[in-house]
């Protein structure tokens, strides 16, 4: 058989195998849409016709109406306005701190996994020591002393304290990708370390990273809620966040039980946002999972 025949035979042999993944599904799209609306509102809040969150524009404790979509709180501030502006703080903390954690922990984790050896041992022992320490206590301690609290400070504290966790996840992902033969193959071709990390490892680690990023943002938003509950977030009269709105509502609800929108709306928004993040994160992971593509 001549070489030409081989070529023809092989060409016939390639069976069409277009990528067929399970469809993304309407529910995922709803979640994505919901996340997008929140982000858009947060970004565009100053430009949108949203009532000022700190202005006492109306009577306290008003019910839902066309003027006040979700009613007003016990100081007469518009709940919808406060929620919209509050998303800036909540999302800011979530995304900002994760940006720090991934910016530092991600590259370090991948580098440690690729290089192995002494570098990995030293970095991993430092990181794992920090991991062993309950970070929530550290965050609470630092934030109680580092006053006045601002968005930036909260982002930095949560961001830094999340580095070890991100490091561990990214290192594990890179370790499993790095043990594959294609990394060896790239070395054999003469690829240098940087090229291997960016071309071979990163694309295979990115899906894990992305879905963990979404989980991280969700966790941090919830964490901000906890901090606000403890009075360790930004003061509610400076800027509202979903967390400190819930904390505020809890206190006023004791006095005025019929003021339920005060607690229902921020709780519902926070809850739905975190749920959507987690759901999309999980869906992304399975969507990008190469092994699930093949039968």
């Amino acid at each position, binding site marked *: 058989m001549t070489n030409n025949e081989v070529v023809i035979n092989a060409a016939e042999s390639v069976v069409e195998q277009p990528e067929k993944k399970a469809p993304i599904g309407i529910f995922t799209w709803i979640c994505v849409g919901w996340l997008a609306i929140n982000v858009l509102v947060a970004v565009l809040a100053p430009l949108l016709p949203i009532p000022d969150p700190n202005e006492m524009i109306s009577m306290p404790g008003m019910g839902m109406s066309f003027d006040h979509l979700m009613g007003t709180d016990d100081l007469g501030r518009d709940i919808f306005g406060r929620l919209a502006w509050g998303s800036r703080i909540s999302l800011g903390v979530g995304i900002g701190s994760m940006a720090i954690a991934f910016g530092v922990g991600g590259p370090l984790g991948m580098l440690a996994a690729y290089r192995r050896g002494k570098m990995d041992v030293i970095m991993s022992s430092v990181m794992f020591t920090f991991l062993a320490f309950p970070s929530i206590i550290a965050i609470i301690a630092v934030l109680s002393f580092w006053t006045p609290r601002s968005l930036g400070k909260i982002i930095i504290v949560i961001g830094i304290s999340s580095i070890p966790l991100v490091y561990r996840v990214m290192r594990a992902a890179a370790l499993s990708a790095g043990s594959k033969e294609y990394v060896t193959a790239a*070395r054999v071709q003469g690829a240098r370390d940087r090229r291997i990390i960016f071309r071979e490892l990163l694309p295979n680690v990115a899906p894990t990273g992305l879905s963990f990023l979404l989980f991280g943002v969700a966790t941090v938003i919830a964490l901000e809620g906890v901090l606000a509950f403890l009075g360790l977030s930004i003061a509610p009269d400076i800027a509202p966040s979903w967390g400190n709105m819930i904390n505020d509502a809890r206190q006023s609800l004791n006095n005025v039980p019929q003021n339920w929108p005060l607690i229902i709306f921020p709780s519902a928004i926070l809850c739905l946002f975190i749920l959507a993040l987690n759901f999309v994160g999980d869906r992304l992971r399975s969507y990008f999972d190469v092994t699930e593509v093949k039968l």
Partner: protein
Amino acid sequence: MSEANNKVVLSVKDLEVTFRKGRQRVSAVAGISFDLYEGETLGLVGESGCGKSTTGRALMQIVPSTGGQIFVDGDELTSLNKDEARNLRRKMQMIFQDPISSLNPRRRVKDIVAEPLDCWKLAKGAERDSIVSDLLNKVGIDPAVYGNRYARQFSGGQCQRISIARSLAMRPRLLICDEVVSALDVSIQAQILNLLEDLKKEYGLTMLFIAHDLAVVKNISDRVAVMYLGKLCEIGPSDTLYAKPAHPYTEFLLGAALEADPELEQSSATLGGEPPSPLNPPSGCRFRTRCPFATEKCAAEEPQLRDIGEGHQVACHFPLVGAHQ
């Protein structure tokens, strides 16, 4: 021996690879020497754990060799610094056993094949595209249709074709194939073996073909070397070695190979026992613990590879007669 001439492309002298396993030292390759002549295919066979794959990996410096020398076209590889070694390794390429895992699932076929060109900044733009298309055509994959697909969309046989195309991009002198067909179905295996034979001719390749399957190795090789527990037992022209094995181990190995023919009488002599641990190899000849012909001399003295005619060498104090001499 078809196209082989006397020019040595690869010369291995006393190659040793030792791994540390806790406090112990495992000598995976315990001093082997062989030459590879231009245009020939040398098959390297042996059972799992004999060090054949480690040999291939040490030649590519994927695992560091702990002793001995590797000459590629006369240049010694192990004494060079990192950059010089990287340069010299351009002459050598390797194809791996697991076709799926040796391609990055998240990269496009075109980019995978062009990887060596990109690493060495050898070609760009239209020139790069035409080299890649040409290579893919050579291995039987239509670049227009499949070039932009991701590696994960291909079957094992196709992945191995893509790996071959990638390995040829640098126009290597030497191609090391490590169990390249053992993960494939028989019909696909035949396609890949034929393809390798054709490309070897076309590109004037010298090949080291590492495999455990005796029939596959014989089919593709001009000469065959048999390894046992980190040592070479025997090396010689394929047809001679298979017809008249001189080392008892080779004969047992051949006897255990099952021929797909119910009417062919199979060898009834099976080799008992299992290979000893490389942590604690036997003294003298490493095969002596399983060899029915072993004597005291075999325990006391390590047999060296010696010529028994017709380019046939054996490391045995008592080579099987009927071979030569």
